[in-house]
């Protein structure tokens, strides 16, 4: 109470200048944001002017012309669904594999735990194209080329190390007593994990899931290298091949790009705190 009154006094003495300066910073912040988001605005703007083709695009769309979007959905709608299916599959694989491992590495005192955690950190440094290079011939032998399952597995590899590191750093904080109490009550190790540990780690589970979704959704390299036919084509690959084939049709390319950016935008608005937690938690801890 005392401290609040003390800190209030100086602020009260200079209310006008300080609030003006603070709004000045807001204006600067908005300008920075405008510069940073301009390319994304331009993507939307170009998408709404499909008639401009190869010509210059007007800074503001004149009226709403959605024909770019209709042709994008016609051409890329299937690829968007493929992306969705592959991403959900990858998230499932990722969480099913990473969550128990994170728990085990956090709570069981097994020999080799440190080596595995170390190995997990190291895997994040292996360049993806190197993995693809070796994986391709293995996939050919196993018949996983041009398959949904093959791409889901490869995309899950983008998220698994990150998910383990992130969830482990949360699960280390679960008190031993909680787990022991559950096991004394007769719960098996698996039931303790599912009914006690997972609910307690909900936030880290969501963050890990979100990020593995975004990794898989954004994947282009595995889609490009592990597919030789059009059977399994996510939207990232679809758009890339589209510009090769239809150089003039920027309107629908941009419309498809807008559609492919929607998950990122939606997640950023709906799950902002998880995203922020993921970026700092996964990298620093």
């Amino acid at each position, binding site marked *: 109470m005392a401290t609040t009154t003390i800190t209030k006094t100086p602020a009260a003495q200079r209310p006008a200048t300080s609030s003006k300066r603070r709004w000045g910073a*807001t204006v600067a912040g908005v300008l920075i944001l405008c510069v940073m988001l301009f390319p*994304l605005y331009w993507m939307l703007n170009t998408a709404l002017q499909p008639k401009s083709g190869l010509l210059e695009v007007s800074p503001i769309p004149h009226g709403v012309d959605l024909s770019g979007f209709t042709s994008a959905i016609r051409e890329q709608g299937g690829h968007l669904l493929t992306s969705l299916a592959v991403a959900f599959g990858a998230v499932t694989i990722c969480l099913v594999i990473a969550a128990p491992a994170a728990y085990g590495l956090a709570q069981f005192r097994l020999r080799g735990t440190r080596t595995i955690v170390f190995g997990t950190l190291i895997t994040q440094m292996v360049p993806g*194209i190197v993995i693809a290079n070796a994986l391709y*011939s293995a996939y050919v032998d196993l018949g996983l080329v041009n398959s949904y399952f093959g791409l889901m597995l490869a995309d899950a*590899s983008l998220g698994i190390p990150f998910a383990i590191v992130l969830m482990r750093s949360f699960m280390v904080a679960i008190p031993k007593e909680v787990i022991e109490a559950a096991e004394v009550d007769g719960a098996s190790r698996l039931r303790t994990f599912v009914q006690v540990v997972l609910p307690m780690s909900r936030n880290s589970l969501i963050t890990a899931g979100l990020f593995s979704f975004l990794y898989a959704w954004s994947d*282009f390299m595995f889609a490009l290298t592990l597919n030789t036919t059009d059977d399994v084509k996510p939207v990232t690959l679809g758009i890339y091949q589209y510009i090769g084939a239809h150089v003039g049709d920027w309107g629908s390319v941009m419309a498809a790009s807008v559609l492919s950016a929607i998950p990122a*935008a939606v997640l950023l608005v709906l799950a902002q705190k998880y995203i922020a937690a993921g970026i700092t938690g996964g990298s620093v801890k």
Partner: protein
Amino acid sequence: MSTTTASATAPAADHPTAPVKKPDPARARRRRRLSQWGFIAPAVIFMVLFFGYPLVRNVLMSFQDYSPSTFFDGKAPFNGTDNWSKVFQDDLFGKALWHTVVFTIGSLIGQFGIGLALAVFFTKRFPLNGVLRSLILLPWLVPMVVSGIVWRRILDQDTGVLNSFLDTFGAGGATPWLTSPGMALFSVILVNIWIGIPFNMVILYGGLQEVPKELYEAASLDGASAWRTFRSITLPLLKPVITVVLVLGFMSTVKILDLILALTDGGPADSTQTLGTLTYQNSFVQLDFGAGAVVGNVLILISAVFAVFYLRANRSEGK
């Protein structure tokens, strides 16, 4: 294996004094261990298959002769160091290595510098701070190949918005951003800086929040200038976070592929060819997986050196 255990337990069963029903503590412990390993094993197996195996396989592949027919007849005979000498004798390898160095250093300087400036800016308290700070993340979350394609349109020499914008100021209205060999690498770096700023900003902002406020108050009481405060308080305390951000930035930049393929496909005249794109070109365009593996191994070697830095930084930071 089973026979040895059977013969080992047989004499024990003969012993009449051996307790029959009492649980064997060693065996119980072993069972517990086994069930505990059950949690970790799937992840270990997955990582061995998807990270360990490719590393080993790449080394082997770099000594094998792959050709387009390999994937029909399965024949990839060992050919000694042929792939290595072929790759190293090609001028393109040296160029790609140099482009990778320039691209990585240029990108990191830009991303980190601007990211740090923005992080410091957002430590100020002002209305809408949180909203603006989170919206700025958007470029980083959009699929990279999509960002590349959007920028390809923006940087178009004749009808791109950047040139028409510059034109209104009468400056450089026909800059061939992506179409001239002299400019393309520079342009690709610019776009990558744009992509990397949010990541740098968020992590550095997090680091700045950890700096105790009292230190700043003490510095301002001592009459230290803003620059002095930044140099003597902020930077030293931020050092561990800076190391992590730079190493992670390095890791993701040095291996980049999506962005360059989307912007230039490595061209014009190989002026944006990097180790990542060269690996891809060798393996998946020329179908010479042996040569691709050689370049890939060089990439791994470079990453491994920095992995050591990363682990040092990680260790010194906590615990």
